[in-house]
């Protein structure tokens, strides 16, 4: 199979201008994680290297995360969402703030967000833009993501670049660089990695959550579960 040259402009490969050194945030994260793993190899205590063995957790180290790393929390939640999905929006507005305030910020739950654009046509472009923003600033990523959910009804493929550019002007992220990177074909691979993980995990719709307890698979949940459901399913 001939590799798609467009994927070679993904962050972490040959994309210029992210940090000016060819090092991207994603690559730094991977190197940092490898260093930590190497330095604790041979230690007899702790579960610092706990990995989650599940298709939904493929390439998890590259994914946006809220809360501590999985090795430091009791439970992990991985959610596959589409920025254009109304049910995902309901989950983000109703459940995630409570989950964040009560369990994530307390260090008890790790939360990962992954993209699975299957609803509106702009979902795929939105996912790539989110990956491009995440590659530059994790904080800006969560804000842009929330903005996409807030303005779902207005966003279309033909206004998403402008919408994103306007929003990023109030952040430290270079809006032009983000838009140009995506317009140049970048970040397809990053989104494809999420889509591949979703398909391997048999995700049929959005949102779909995967719950893990101490690294062990607990269950999946399709739809927008309430905080009460999540809290009880995780044993709190």
């Amino acid at each position, binding site marked *: 199979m001939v590799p798609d040259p467009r994927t070679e402009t993904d962050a972490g490969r040959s994309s210029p201008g992210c940090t000016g050194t060819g090092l991207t945030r994603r690559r730094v994260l991977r190197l940092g994680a490898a260093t930590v793993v190497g330095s604790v190899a041979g230690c007899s205590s702790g579960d610092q290297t706990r990995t989650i063995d599940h298709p939904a957790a493929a390439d998890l180290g590259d994914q946006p995360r809220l809360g501590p790393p999985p090795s430091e929390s009791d439970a992990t939640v991985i959610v596959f969402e589409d920025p254009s*999905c*109304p*049910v995902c929006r*309901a989950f983000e507005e*109703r*459940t995630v703030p409570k989950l964040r305030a009560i369990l994530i910020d307390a260090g008890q739950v790790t939360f990962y967000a992954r993209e699975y*654009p*299957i*609803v*509106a*046509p702009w*979902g*795929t472009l939105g996912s790539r833009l989110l990956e491009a923003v995440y590659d530059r600033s994790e904080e800006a990523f969560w804000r842009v993501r929330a903005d996409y959910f807030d303005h779902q009804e207005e966003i279309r493929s033909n206004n998403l670049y402008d919408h994103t550019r306007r929003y990023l002007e109030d952040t430290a992220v270079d809006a032009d660089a983000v838009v140009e990177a995506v317009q140049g074909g970048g970040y397809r691979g990053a989104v494809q990695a999420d*889509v591949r993980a979703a*398909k391997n995990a048999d995700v*049929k*719709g*959005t949102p779909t959550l995967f719950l893990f307890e101490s690294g062990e698979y*607990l*269950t*999946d*949940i*399709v*739809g*927008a*579960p*309430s905080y*009460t*459901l999540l809290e*009880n*399913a995780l*044993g709190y």
Partner: protein
Amino acid sequence: MNLQIRTAVRLPVHARDWRLMARAVRRVLSQRRYVGLLGVSTVLALSAIAVAQNGELFVRVVVLGRLPLSNRLHVLAAMYPFLGTTFEFTTAVSVLALSTLVGLDVTMLLYHFREHGVSAAVGASGTAGTAGALVGALGAGCVVCGTSLLAGLISLVGVSGGVVVAPFEGLGVTLLAAALVVLSLFWTAEGMHGGMRKRELAERSDR
């Protein structure tokens, strides 16, 4: 067993068809035991829809989970419309309505089977009614986000990753399911009408 096979399947396009359905429903619900059966089958239909959204959650956490009973009961309750948030408001209302329709359909089918015998139930109208009830219930099985059902169907025919927007945020799927159940109700009502006519004729010939 006397199998009656009809080649034509009618649709309720006339006012008299709806009056036939209404009479059949009234007849069935005039008996208290069938009212009770309606309640039970509605709850079962609602539970089937709620659990079908998250079968793995139900089995792994509610049934087989090691959590305290209170946690598991909370999880189970949160899977139902209005008790949890899995269903949006309009979808929750439509799921309740659909569950009632399915419950009514099942009740009428059982009445038909019980009052008019096996032959009527396995005739074209009875079979169509049963199939309609099943399809209606299954069609409602993905009301959380109609996209997932439609995306699944599209991927079955090889168009993976196809972008589908379910009408009215998935409500369209529920409405389709409701239409199928109403068809099932009509076919069952027709079958009941036919079964009653058969019985009347049999009683007359016995005299």
